[in-house]
């Protein structure tokens, strides 16, 4: 479990980091908390000649809430997400999800930026960010740009981020309504067998809007637009929920693995989604 040799860089500004990435080319990778990247390197499943460490860049850290706009620096750790009271007020689903990631040792080091940039379908934050309709802020040699979380994921480990771009922050509007993150996993420190992010807004007892995203049930996170639409405008009766579940099942594509066969995952995805809808609705 020893990685191949690599060079290590530790810039202290975003600009310096971007320049390093551009100069070093293909063989460079940024490292944030390292808790997805280092295991891959140790198993020699990826070949990296240069690591560009973002730890020293203060500008990438912190949580800012301005009115309804929440902005989280890419290098904010998962533990900081859990501990931030203002964030827990604005979007409690983030804390609920972060508490179900790995274990405290990992969460004190792993970052939200690394979690969403990684592109591993097992990561919990990407689906959640799609549910929240978050915006990713990227900085590259040609300057800054924004991209929606819902447009970011292409396939396992393939995202819309160019190799020389750095994710600097994530922003979203504090959601109205009830929220729930429900995850089934085999044990502490395990990726989801199935997980659901659900936000439900209500008015006059009916669901006025809903957003639903699923985790680890395809090679990307799956924002289930039709499932949300199935709930919007409904009284959230049993048939409405089943419509949403059916819409969700139509867009996920789980595979057999050690967590179980695809058939089982489809079943638990439905169970988990029902539970998440119920919980979110009860909080709305």
């Amino acid at each position, binding site marked *: 479990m020893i990685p191949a040799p690599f060079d290590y860089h530790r810039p202290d500004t975003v600009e310096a980091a971007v320049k390093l990435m551009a100069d070093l080319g293909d063989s460079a990778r940024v490292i944030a908390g390292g808790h997805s990247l280092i295991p891959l390197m140790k198993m020699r499943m990826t070949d990296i000649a240069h690591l560009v460490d973002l730890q020293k860049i203060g500008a990438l850290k912190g949580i800012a809430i301005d009115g309804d706009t929440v902005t989280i620096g890419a290098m904010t750790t998962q533990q900081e997400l859990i501990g931030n009271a203002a964030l827990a007020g604005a979007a409690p689903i983030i804390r609920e999800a972060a508490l179900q990631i790995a274990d405290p040792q990992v969460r004190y080091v792993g970052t939200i930026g690394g979690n969403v940039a990684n592109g591993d379908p097992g990561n919990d934050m990407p689906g959640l960010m799609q549910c929240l309709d978050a915006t990713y802020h990227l900085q590259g040699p040609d300057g800054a740009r924004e991209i929606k979380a819902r447009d970011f994921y292409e396939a396992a480990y393939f995202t819309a981020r160019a190799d020389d771009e750095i994710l600097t922050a994530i922003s979203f509007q504090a959601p109205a309504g009830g929220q729930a993150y429900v995850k089934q996993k085999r044990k502490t420190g395990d990726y989801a067998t199935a997980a659901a992010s659900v936000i439900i807004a209500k008015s006059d007892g009916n669901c006025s809007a809903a957003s639903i995203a699923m985790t680890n049930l395809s090679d990307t996170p799956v924002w289930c637009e039709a499932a949300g639409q199935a709930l919007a405008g409904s009284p959230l009766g049993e048939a409405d929920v089943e419509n949403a579940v059916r819409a969700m099942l139509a867009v996920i594509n789980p595979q057999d693995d*050690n967590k179980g066969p695809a058939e089982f995952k489809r079943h638990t995805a439905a169970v988990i989604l029902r539970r998440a809808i119920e919980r979110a609705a009860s909080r709305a």
Partner: protein
Amino acid sequence: MNEMTPPKTERTAALKGLGSARKRVEDARFTQGKGNYVDDIKLPGMLFGDFVRSPYAHARIKSIDAEKAKALPGVIAVLTAADLAPLKLHWMPTLAGDVQMVLADGKVLFQGQEVAFVVAENRYIAADAVELVEVDYEELPVVVDPFKAEAPDAPVLREDLAGKSEGAHGPRRHHNHIFTWEQGDRDATEKVLASADVVAEEMVYYHRTHPCPLETCGCVASMDKVNGKLTVWGTFQAPHAVRTVASLISGIAEHNIRIISPDIGGGFGNKVGVYPGYICSIVASIVTGVPVKWVEDRMENLMATAFARDYWMKGKISATKDGRITGLWCHVTADHGAFDACADPTKFPAGFFNICTGSYDIPVAYLAVDGVYTNKAPGGVAYRCSFRVTEAAYFIERMIEVLAIRLGMDSAELRAKNFIRKDQFPYHSALGWEYDSGDYHTAWDKALKAVDYEGLRREQAQRLEDFKAGKTRKLIGIGLTHFTEIVGAGPVKNCDILGLGMFDSCEIRIHPTGSAIARLGTISQGQGHATTFAQILASEIGIPADDITVEEGDTDTAPYGLGTYGSRSTPVAGAATAMAGRKIRAKAQMIAAYLLEVHDDDVEWDIDRFAVKGAPERFKTMKEIAFAAYNQAIPGIEPGLEAVSYYDPPNMTYPFGAYICVMEIDVDTGEHEIRQFYALDDCGTRINPMIIEGQVHGGATEGYAIAMGQEIAYDEMGNVKTATLMDFFLPTAWETPHYTTDFTVTPSPHHPIGAKGVGESPNVGSVPAFSNAVHDAFRAFGLTQTHMPHDHWRIWRTAHELGLHG
């Protein structure tokens, strides 16, 4: 003077002897990170070895090109089978009478097999060099299913055995067959089954898993070319046996080999056998003249170092209509992997699996075990159990449940009806053992009462009704187990390892000022020997446990012993300790009598002293006696106070226990929650209740992992699917159930202090308790048998197949 003698209770307490919940003396260093493990050993000029391993489960090696690796700066050597062949070290004997490749000789037989050994200046360079060794493989057809291993056209795995129809344990009937081991009376058993009122038949699979100690296996070999001495520090559960085997294999005289087991971070059977890493490190040190370290990583440990279990157990159990068991029949297909490297006593190719009649008075039984080769890692070690005893306990405790279902009977009642009664001990089992002692009914009644068994069954019935009425999606399962172990191998007359009798030893030296050192042939891997053996001695010789150092693991200083596994330390070395202590006391008695100017028979032992009979105010304490032993000439008695005992136990010991697990199961997701786990253990005399409790917690947690998720799984190509801790289930504090421990005490009649051993009971007993709870939850829906591990998807599948998902 007699006013100054503290009361007996106080003097007894001060010794911290038998029964004291004395804190573990080991923990001060372990909890401060001050342990000294193999990987902490750093010697000047030390090199590092690392393996090139096979990516294939079965392949011919067409060529190995190590030139690029050798060219890497810092690489000293790359060893292959060709380099070891002239030394005849490219193969080595296994503990089971088979042979095993040290480095792949022409072909590889399992994924992760050792192909070449790279030696470099540090472990980083070694890891880089491993990548540079080019091996050209030609893939061969793979056998992963043990039932297909013996097909007529199955690929030949062991070409080295071509034409050998006789193996270490009798005839081989197929090129992938290893042995058949038969016990009991086949004809009589089949006759009973044929005419029985009821026969329950089931295939019970105890899946392949792995001991996965926190510290992986490793060693540092150091050949001193000046004095010709080879020193090997290693993760060895049996250091003396390693020394003897190393001498026999290498030709180095045994007095020139020193084996040291430093602190060991868990063994659980994984560290009993001899691995290629040890041989390669020793050869590399001999060749280079400097020390060589090899420490495997987690993936290597899970993929290549000894696995456990993998027994397919077909059972038939017969009974009268009212539930009196009349016979037991069992056939095991044992998947041994590519080499038979089980760590069993030599004459027992399936270990003590013939304890599979369990706690029950079964008049007639028959057992046959067939070992087969497959393209999987070798092993079959006793993962925190006496040899194959966990498999046996799981088998019989499942068969009891299956029979209860056939009979429509409560399985608690069925057990009680068939237990060996207290008055039947010593009990001769149908498969050949003599159970030394037991009182199963007392333990069972206590357990059922403690959990309010009737109340639990009522609650379960109510839950079932609620479930059927659609009010809940959770079922309750109540898992019962009454297990009997056979531990403490063992009598030399029937137990040996490669010809070494399985006695054990203790040597005691009392220092002039009345403290002591005891050395044993065993080696602790977390069991707390330094704590408990001092307690045995404290009670025997009246010196406080705090004043006794216990030392193990260095073959240059410790007396010869067969090591620690199979819960044998307390039954065998613990007995040796007591016996050596009694020798000390016998001499102390003579010294005391001399000092008190009375006849030897006129003094009597009183906790920590000898006193004149009828005149307790005239005494000599052990401290005084010790000093006298060194400072004055006593006619007819040699100076000094030392003793050594080699103990060959007359029988095994038979610890037993009653475990009950209450589990909630979510039929929709397959998730579970352990609501209650009650563990009653009878390990005979209890030396340290706190350590017993700790052992029970640890073993039951391993059992929980095994039953509920832990496995070594292969795909059909022979790839290991569970080689990291992401997929191989080790519970954290979060998953670990809460345990309630309890006990009864039925001392072993033949053990000097009546102790039986406990370290392994909880692993043996908890696996069936957890598994039976899962089965029990679904019993009302017609489930009789499903296989472990009961992870989410398998429980879900059971619910699904029973139609519980609508």
